[in-house]
C-alpha cells in the first residue's frame, strides 16, 4: 500500500471513544471450587452510567472485585486502557473507585476526615492536595459538616455518602458501587439518587432496586449464574417480562 494511502486511512479512521472499562471473557472460581464467573464480557464507555442487576449469587460482587484486582480470575480487564495485572495494581486501584455494600466495612478510620484522606494519602499526594480533595469530596456528597465526626455516630445514609466520598477523593476513572440503595430509608435513597445523577463520572452500579435503575440508568446489564444474559436499553429490558421472570427479577 502506498504510504500516502496509509496516512489517509489513519486520518480517516476516527479516534475511538476511550473506554473506561473493558472486560473480556473473565472467568473466576473461588478457592472452595464454587465457579462464580463463566466468561463475562463488558464494555463501558467514558461517562456512561450502567446498572448491573441479577439475583443474589449471580456473580455481580465477584465481578466488581475483579475490576481492581482484589480477586484475580482468568480473562482480560482494562481500566481506561490500563490492563489489570499484578504490576499495575496500584495505578488500577487509583482509577477504580469501589464502594462496598456495607459502609461499616468501608469506613474503618477513627474520623470521617481520615477515612476520606486514606486513598489520597496512599496515592502519595502532598498534604495540601489531600486536604483539598477531602474537602471537595465531602462537598460533592453534601457532608462537609461531618469532617471531624466519628463513623460509628452516623446514620446508614450518612455512612453511604461518606463511603462514596472516600473514593471520590481519589478522582477515579470509574465509580463502582455495590448495592448503594440497600438498607436506606426512602429519603436517604432519594438523596442517593440525586447524588448519583449529579456525579459526572463513569459508573457501574449493582443493585436490586429496579425503580432506581429505571430512573437513573439508560443502560442495564443483567447477570445470572456467572454470565451476562442481557445488555441493553433499560426501558427495553424492563419491558421484557419473560426475560425478567427467567432471571428472578420483577419490573418496578
Amino acid at each position, binding site marked *: 500500500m502506498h504510504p500516502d494511502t496509509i496516512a489517509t486511512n489513519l486520518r480517516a479512521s476516527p479516534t475511538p471513544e476511550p473506554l473506561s472499562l473493558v472486560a473480556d471473557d473473565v472467568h473466576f472460581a473461588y478457592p472452595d471450587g464454587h465457579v462464580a464467573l463463566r466468561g463475562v464480557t463488558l464494555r463501558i464507555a467514558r461517562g456512561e452510567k450502567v446498572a448491573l442487576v441479577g439475583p443474589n449469587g449471580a456473580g455481580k460482587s465477584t465481578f466488581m472485585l475483579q475490576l481492581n484486582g482484589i480477586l484475580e480470575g482468568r480473562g482480560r480487564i482494562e481500566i481506561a486502557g490500563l490492563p489489570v495485572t499484578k504490576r499495575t495494581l*496500584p495505578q488500577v486501584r487509583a482509577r477504580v473507585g*469501589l464502594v462496598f455494600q456495607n459502609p461499616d466495612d468501608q469506613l474503618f478510620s477513627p474520623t470521617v476526615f481520615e477515612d476520606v484522606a486514606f486513598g489520597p494519602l496512599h496515592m502519595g499526594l502532598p498534604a495540601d492536595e489531600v486536604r483539598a480533595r477531602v474537602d471537595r469530596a465531602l462537598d460533592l456528597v453534601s457532608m462537609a459538616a461531618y469532617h471531624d465526626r466519628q463513623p460509628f455516630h452516623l446514620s446508614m445514609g450518612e455512612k453511604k455518602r461518606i463511603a462514596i466520598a472516600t473514593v471520590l477523593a481519589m478522582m477515579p476513572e470509574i465509580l463502582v458501587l455495590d448495592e448503594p440503595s440497600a438498607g436506606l430509608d426512602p429519603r436517604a435513597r432519594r438523596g442517593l439518587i440525586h447524588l448519583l445523577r449529579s456525579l459526572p463520572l463513569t459508573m457501574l452500579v449493582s443493585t436490586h432496586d429496579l425503580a432506581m435503575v429505571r430512573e437513573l440508568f439508560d443502560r442495564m446489564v443483567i447477570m445470572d449464574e456467572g454470565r451476562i444474559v442481557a445488555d441493553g436499553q433499560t426501558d427495553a429490558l424492563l419491558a421484557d417480562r419473560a426475560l425478567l421472570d427467567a432471571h428472578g427479577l420483577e419490573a418496578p
Partner: protein
Amino acid sequence: MMHTHLLDRYREAQSVIHRLDPRVKVVVTLLFIVSTALLPDGAWFAFALSFILVLSCSFLARLGVTFALRRSFVVLPFALAAITAIIAVPGRPLFMWQIGGTTIIGTDAGVVRFLSILARSWLSVQMAIVLTATTNVPDLLHALRHLRVPEVLVAIVGFMLRYLSVLADEAARLLRAREARSALLANRRGGGSPGWRARVAGYMAGQLFLRSYERSDRVYNAMLARGFAGRFLAINPHLMREHDWWALAVTVVALTVVQLAGQGFPPG
C-alpha cells in the same frame, strides 16, 4: 438499628484541658502515673498532693470535682488483688487468723503496703479517666502515633475502638434473636438442659467470631481497594502552642514537689 456506645468516655466541653495538645495530655498522664508508682509506701502526704492534682485537673476540665472519683470505682476489684500484701510483708503483727493448721498473720507494714498500692492504682486510674474524658479517640490515636508508639499497635487500638461497637451491636442482635425464640408453653417444663444451653451460647460466640473474622476480610479488601500497601499514613494536624509548653512545665514542677514530699517522709 442499635447503637452501643461502649467507648464514649469522651465528654464534649470547652476547657483549658480539652484544648491542650493530646500529646501533652498523654505525656502528662504517663508522668503522673510513673510519679505515683515511684512514691514509697505510706507517703500519705504525697498521695494527698497527687490527689489534689487529679482534682484540679478534673476541675479545670469542668468535669466536676468528683467525676473521676466516681468512675474510678470500677477498678477497685482489681486493686483488691493486692490484699495479700497484708499478710505477706513482715512487720509488727496486728491480727492473726487460724485456718486449718496454718496461722495467717497480718502486719502493720503489710497494711501500709496494701493501702499504698490501693492509693497508687486509684490515683493512676483517675488521671487516666480524666485523659479519656477530655481527649476523643481520634486525637488520642494521633497522639500515640506522634509519640512514636509502633504503628501496628496504634492501628490495632484504632480498629478495636472502631469496631468494638459494631461487634457489640452484632452480639446484641444475636442475643435478641435468641430471646425472641426462647418461648415456653403454658403447662410444660422447657428451657432445655444446662448443657444444651451452654452449647447454644458456645455456637453464638463462634458465630460472633466468624462474623468478625469475615468482616476483617472485607475491611482489608476495602483498604486494598483504596491503595493500602502495608503502611498507615496520616497528616500531622497537631502543633504545640504556648499553653501546651506551660502545661508540661507546670506538671513537671508539680510532680517534682510531690516526689520531694513523698521521698522526704518515709514511713515510720
